């Protein structure tokens, strides 16, 4: 093995650092010039990813921001560069909460916020509980683990369309069970229109989303040393104590990322409501993505739609920033 090993590592790990001291070798000068000559290589390797991210994400985002300052309706869509500037008009319309457009956006925002908080919370609880319960080996564990991942593996439209069938008023399973078999409701309910649609959307979202939390927590649990539990059990800690004192604290870094990712995905979710309700969602389940889609493509008002998207992005940026600051501040003392 080369004595130069330690020097080419970008961030020396404990292992390579130990090797360095034991071998006590200094980097050879020839090696160093080789590295300088290769300095372009990392950029070359990153180039495809960079170009694609630029084309599909960053440039469109900039254009989207520009569009939000333009008066962009169907008359200008073919040649959008010539659309007249609108200044802040699109934003004014979007946040004028006394007028119908702004009021509808605000309503949609609060619906999305409530939906996201509930969905992320439920997904996290179900996923964590299932992962902890499936930690010990018992008969049928592998089967359950595979079964629990099925909702996540199913394509969104296939899963959601099944739920659409189940939520049908006349021939759906949900009304059949609740009304015909259990007699819980006086008459069959409508699930995909009216106030119930929020519950329907939440159910589908949790059903589809919790296995992701399960998967991540399951992976996180495998990094907790078995000895910790054994030591705790010997000290007399019960199951609940072990979960509270060992499992949850050890999962904190995993949860920090998991909750953020779940929040962003759920808040931006378009697929579930779009397949569940179609182009126009019922008011009680009017998630922001579908709302903006409708404002843009159904009414062909791209300028206002873009302004709403920018506001949404700003909100998510602020939430993410605050979240990261708060969670990393809380983490630091525990590491010190």
């Amino acid at each position, binding site marked *: *093995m*080369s004595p130069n090993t330690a020097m*080419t590592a970008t961030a020396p790990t404990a292992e390579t650092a130990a090797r360095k001291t034991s071998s006590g070798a200094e980097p050879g000068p020839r090696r160093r010039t080789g590295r300088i000559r290769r300095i372009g*290589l*990392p*950029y070359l*390797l*990153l180039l*495809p*990813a960079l170009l*694609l*991210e630029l*084309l*599909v*994400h960053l*440039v469109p985002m900039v*254009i*989207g921001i520009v569009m939000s300052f333009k008066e962009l309706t169907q008359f200008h869509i073919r040649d959008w560069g010539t659309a007249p500037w609108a200044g802040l008009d699109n934003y004014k319309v979007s946040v004028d909460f006394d007028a119908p457009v702004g009021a509808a956006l605000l309503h949609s925002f609060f619906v999305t916020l409530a939906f996201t908080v509930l969905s992320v919370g439920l997904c996290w609880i*179900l996923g964590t509980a*299932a992962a902890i319960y499936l930690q010990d080996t018992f008969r049928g564990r592998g089967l*359950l683990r*595979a079964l629990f991942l*099925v*909702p996540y593996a*199913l394509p*969104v*439209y*296939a899963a959601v*369309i*099944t*739920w659409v*069938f*189940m939520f*049908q008023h006349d021939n759906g399973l949900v009304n*059949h069970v609740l009304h*015909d078999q259990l007699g819980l409701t006086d008459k069959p309910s409508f699930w995909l229109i009216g106030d119930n649609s929020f519950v329907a959307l939440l159910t589908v979202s949790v*059903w589809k989303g919790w296995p992701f939390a399960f998967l*991540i927590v*399951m992976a*996180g649990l495998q990094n907790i040393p078995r000895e910790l539990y054994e030591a705790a*059990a010997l000290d007399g800690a*019960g*199951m609940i104590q072990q979960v509270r004192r060992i499992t949850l604290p050890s999962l904190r870094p*995993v949860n920090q*990322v998991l909750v953020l990712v779940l929040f*962003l995905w759920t808040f*931006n979710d*378009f*697929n579930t409501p779009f*397949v569940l309700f179609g182009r126009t969602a019922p008011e009680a389940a009017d998630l922001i*993505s579908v709302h*903006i*889609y409708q404002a843009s*493509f159904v009414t062909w008002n*791209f300028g206002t*739609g873009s302004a709403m*998207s920018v506001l*949404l*992005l700003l909100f*998510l940026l602020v939430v993410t920033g605050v979240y990261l600051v708060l969670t990393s501040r809380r983490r630091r003392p525990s590491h010190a």
Partner: protein
Amino acid sequence: MPSSPRTATASPMAPPRSFLWSRRIFLTLLTGFVTVPVYVMVSSSLKPLPDVTGEFRWLPSEVTIRPYIDIWSTVPLARYFLNSLIVAGAATVCSVVIAVFSAYAVSRYTFRGRRVFTVTVLSTQMFPGILFLLPLFLIYVNLGNATGIALFGSRGGLILTYLTFSLPFSVWMLIGYFDSVPRDLDEAAMVDGCGPLGALFRVVVPAATPGIVAVAVYAFMTAWGEVLFASVMTNDTTRTLAVGLQGYSTLNDVYWNQIMAASLVVSVPVVAGFLLLQRYLVAGLTAGAVK
């Protein structure tokens, strides 16, 4: 907690009864919640039409495979299937290759902008799809008008879009995974005369296969299931399953048995693939992202 310290000491590995019961109840309820829609999908796909238009019934009045034959003629399902296969397959291959290169650069080199790159790529996950849907739609239309390369409405445009969707997560996960492959290995390969790319493909990639498989599964599932861009950026010939499947319900009759059969048919490849490879996904997450 009713279990006394003594019982815990006596057998530290045997969980108390209350835990076993709570586990039994919780897992039973959860299994029910997960299974019912899957059961509805499977059983309804084997029902004759009157069974799914009238009141819901748990069991088919007669079991028929008729829906599985009819799905192919009611809508051009085979074409949608092929389109989805091409789009998702190509997006997966490209996404994985590009992610491998990027992750290798970030994992093995220190260079200016390294942190900016990872943060930027990851933060694209935050963008609401709707924000860049409209501009991307315009870019593709205008690029098409200017260069003659048809991106809008073509499979190529969709492939390009989808591969960037899975890219951030793939890069992020592979960085963690490559970090866990000892650098000594690629150093040894370089000493033996491999270039950096030789070391990547002969040493790092084979050692990181589980992570790469996991990333590929994720990329394929992402592309196979996407609805928003598919609904705007495809036309009759390039339509994918995500949009095509809704064709059964916009006709005068809603053939729920056929919808369920078609849903099942389009789900089987991804679900089977996912369940076969989920071991790798968990291993990849454990080694990479979750660390």
